[in-house]
């Protein structure tokens, strides 16, 4: 088949502060045959999005395409003027952005945005465009396809917006579709639905596509060929199977290795035997402005151990960390630290209590004051908690930097001069400055590249050995949690649906939600998405389903594939303990869950 896209010698430069032009993409060339999906994969700063945007003749401000050729169909993109580019964009080549929530205009209804490209390029009448949009909504499995277009972007969920954006990209029947990290901002359980929808429409339409991602496992499902990028240069290019099974380049091998989280050392046996837990949460209920976000939460963190808290966005996991840190007072229940109850709000806690529990936020960019040097950022908690000043303080800062494996001369720099991984280390060093007993890690690796994130996980494990500190590790990523935590709590919609030790959570039976979480994580092999199969229709619920909102009922009932009519929507679910010590909040006994999950897996593979 003829190549639809041909890129050669592409070079994109950016003007730096000194006014010099630095190449961020250098000598990149590839071609895409008609009807194939090519993946551009790499870490942040690898130039993958820059290349994808260059295919539309577009660069972000400060950047410039300084050389090479890009041919799409029989059009030489780089020879077009501004007006001609407008004619190509959104018509022959379309784009699906990473964050649909930010890429939709908040002031315009969804339908008007979806059909805008078709009307802009004069391809069809408004009525025809709307009809086509509704058909696309239907084939992308969007709920209420006839009416969803009348809503505004803030009225639909993130996963739905991402699919609506796909409808917007496909309405003009483009020759080339660019997917720019389209599922990165989504929960895994949503991601799998969106990937299915994308795959289906790509197949139906025989579309040629570029799929930009940092996630090898996602790319394995979507792409025919993969281009591996690093620092704006191509490291390796080949068919998907070859890249996954026999990566030739050393950098690709590093990426592959980081994609599968390595098990970190588990709890030292001596510590596990310690009698009283370091932190205990009992019957906790908390929320914002009267609506409870967390309900009936009980958990304990043993001295020196790591507790993993996992759940999707909105499950209340960050709220839990905030309650323990004293940022939100609980509405009911209590938090015990070393057996002593902690006051609900920060102001009522003693300085010593504050010192012993530290929180590390997800985004080091917003957590570190951009106008203070690293030394001053670290000096503040040292002075506040330990009363260190002058030379003693400087010495301690050097020690802290050494502890997080950073050179001492970094102390004079500003956060903006550091890389993402370095900033997260400073964020961690700031917490360590207080010499805490417990560190609450809220999604500390989510904003980082896989390789950099893996190094942070290693650091956390080493610090635990050296300092005997305990962690509460909050994440949406079950494979990370299973790799670093001793005990795991699964939250869904503010309730603890399952909890148990890491070993116990390695094999079924699982709570239906945990099972969904685990089975939604893409595996690093081709054909996984097909094997998981289509989303199964949920069991039909009877009239009692009207009571779904009753707070005492299982919160997962609306999405549960194992729900029982007349039980799950009528009676509160019991919490039962399994032989391996796990707790599950479900009507199904363990053996039924085990049978069911084994059956589903068999159906999927067979």
């Amino acid at each position, binding site marked *: 088949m003829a190549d639809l896209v041909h890129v050669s010698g592409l070079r994109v430069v950016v003007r730096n502060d000194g006014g010099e032009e630095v190449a961020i993409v250098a000598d990149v060339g590839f071609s895409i045959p008609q009807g194939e999906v090519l993946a551009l994969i790499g870490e942040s700063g690898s130039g993958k999005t820059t290349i994808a*945007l260059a295919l*539309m003749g*577009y660069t*972000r401000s400060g950047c410039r395409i300084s050389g090479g050729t890009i041919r799409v169909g029989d059009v030489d993109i780089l020879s077009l003027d501004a*007006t001609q580019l*407008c*004619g*190509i*964009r*959104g*018509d022959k080549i*379309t*784009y699906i*952005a990473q*964050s649909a929530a*930010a*890429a*939709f*205009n*908040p*002031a*315009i209804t969804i339908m008007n945005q979806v059909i*805008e*490209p078709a009307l*802009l*390029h004069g391809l069809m009448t408004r009525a025809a465009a709307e009809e086509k949009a509704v058909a696309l909504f239907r084939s992308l499995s969007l709920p209420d396809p006839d009416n969803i277009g009348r809503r*505004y972007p*803030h*009225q639909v969920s993130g996963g739905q917006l991402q699919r609506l954006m796909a409808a*917007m990209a496909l309405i003009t029947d483009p020759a080339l579709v660019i997917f720019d990290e389209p599922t990165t901002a989504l929960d895994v359980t949503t991601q799998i639905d969106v990937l299915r929808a994308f795959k289906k429409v790509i197949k139906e339409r025989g579309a040629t596509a570029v799929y930009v991602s940092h996630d090898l496992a996602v790319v394995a499902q979507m792409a025919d060929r993969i281009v591996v990028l690093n620092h704006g240069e191509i490291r390796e290019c080949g068919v998907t199977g070859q890249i996954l099974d026999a990566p030739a380049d050393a950098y690709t091998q590093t990426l592959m290795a980081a994609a599968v989280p390595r098990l970190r050392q588990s709890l030292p046996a001596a510590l596990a035997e310690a009698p009283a837990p370091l932190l205990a949460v009992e019957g906790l209920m908390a929320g914002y402005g009267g609506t409870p976000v967390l309900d009936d939460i009980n958990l304990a963190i043993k001295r020196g151990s790591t507790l993993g808290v996992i759940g999707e966005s909105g499950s209340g996991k960050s709220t839990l960390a905030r309650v323990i840190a004293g940022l939100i007072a609980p509405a009911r229940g209590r938090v015990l630290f070393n057996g002593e109850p902690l006051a609900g709000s920060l102001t009522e806690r003693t300085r010593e209590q504050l010192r012993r529990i530290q929180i590390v936020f997800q985004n080091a960019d917003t957590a570190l004051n951009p106008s203070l040097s690293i030394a001053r950022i670290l000096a503040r908690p040292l002075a506040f908690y330990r009363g260190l000043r002058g030379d003693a303080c400087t010495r301690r800062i050097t020690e802290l930097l050494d502890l997080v494996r950073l050179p001492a001369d970094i102390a004079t720099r500003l956060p903006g001069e550091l890389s993402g991984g370095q900033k997260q280390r400073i964020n961690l060093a700031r917490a360590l400055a207080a010499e805490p007993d417990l560190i609450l890690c809220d999604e500390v690796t989510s904003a980082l590249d896989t390789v950099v994130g893996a190094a942070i996980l290693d650091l956390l494990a080493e610090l635990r050995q050296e300092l005997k500190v305990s962690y509460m590790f909050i994440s949406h990523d079950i494979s990370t949690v299973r790799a670093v935590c001793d005990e795991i709590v699964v939250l869904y919609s503010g309730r603890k649906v399952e909890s148990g030790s890491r070993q116990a959570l390695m094999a079924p039976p699982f709570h239906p939600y945990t099972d969904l979480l685990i089975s939604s994580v893409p595996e690093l092999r081709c054909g996984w998405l097909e094997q998981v199969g289509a989303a199964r229709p949920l069991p039909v619920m009877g009239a009692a389903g009207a009571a779904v909102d009753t707070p005492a009922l299982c919160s997962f009932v609306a999405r549960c594939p194992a729900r029982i009519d007349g039980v799950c929507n009528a009676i509160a679910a019991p919490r039962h303990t399994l032989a391996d010590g796990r707790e599950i909040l479900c009507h199904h006994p363990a053996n039924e869950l085990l049978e069911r999950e084994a059956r589903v897996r068999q159906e999927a593979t067979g």
Partner: protein
Amino acid sequence: MNNVIVLVAKRIGAAALTLLLVSAVVFAITSLLPGDAAEEALGQGATPETVAALRTELGLDQPGHLRYLHWLGGLVTGNPGQSLANHLPVSELVASRLPKSMVLAGTTAAVSVPLALLLGVLSAMFRGGKVDRVLNLFTLSMVAVPEFLVATLAVLIFAVKLHWLSALSSPPDNPTFAQFLRVYAMPVMTLSFVIVAQMARMTRAALIDQLEQTYVEMAVLKGAGPTRVVLRHALPNAIGPIANAIALSLSYLLGGAIIVETIFNYPGIASLMVDAVTSRDMPLLQTCAMIFCAVYLSLVLIADVCAIVSNPRLKGH
């Protein structure tokens, strides 16, 4: 839609409350000014007895809170009292001046708002470019030059040298269009000089803030041209801040027009208020202050309503 009605009702309630508080403050402050109308009317040679007698006659000897309630009642029923200086009803004095001020303010708004929006949108579209820099320099110098200088220069050029316009701007009762132009050209130009620059710069800032959002990049990648990107995508999201900037600038047109009114001898309400201050004419002064405040609050209220209505998050389901 209910959300919007509730929000707008709350804003109106807040504006009414503010107006009430302002009335108390205005009354209290004007009572603190030294001297009163009785002393002013009788002049230097008055004996304490005649002053006291006049005070009783004018009701100035009553306690403050009674005078306030009496005055507030009159204000609400459209009878803000008798001017102490020339014994005409305050309402009559205001009625002779307010419409003229409104015409001046309205004409200035009609000229300057579209012009400011155009300048703001243009410089936002070509931000960093030549057009932007030229407009930036132009608007900045407009802000920097004091209005009395602009007015004086205008009189010098158009009235004294060229003899195109009259240096005095007293509108006839039923002006023809040509007369209207001749009378209003210079005052409107002078006032526009000040507020166009402010509004244009605020429009530019609000638009640029939106143009840096991801959805604007998306619109570009959908093939929308620069004009469509700005007008269809960015502008609707910038209406809130722009409306507020316009309201603040326009509120200046009534009370702040004093210099322009004085230079062109235009019979507006700002000069009426200054006269009231010099003659210690408290009822007139208080009424003028209340009018300025009411106009200001209504403009801000309109801007808030624009911001509320243009925000789809508040439109409800």
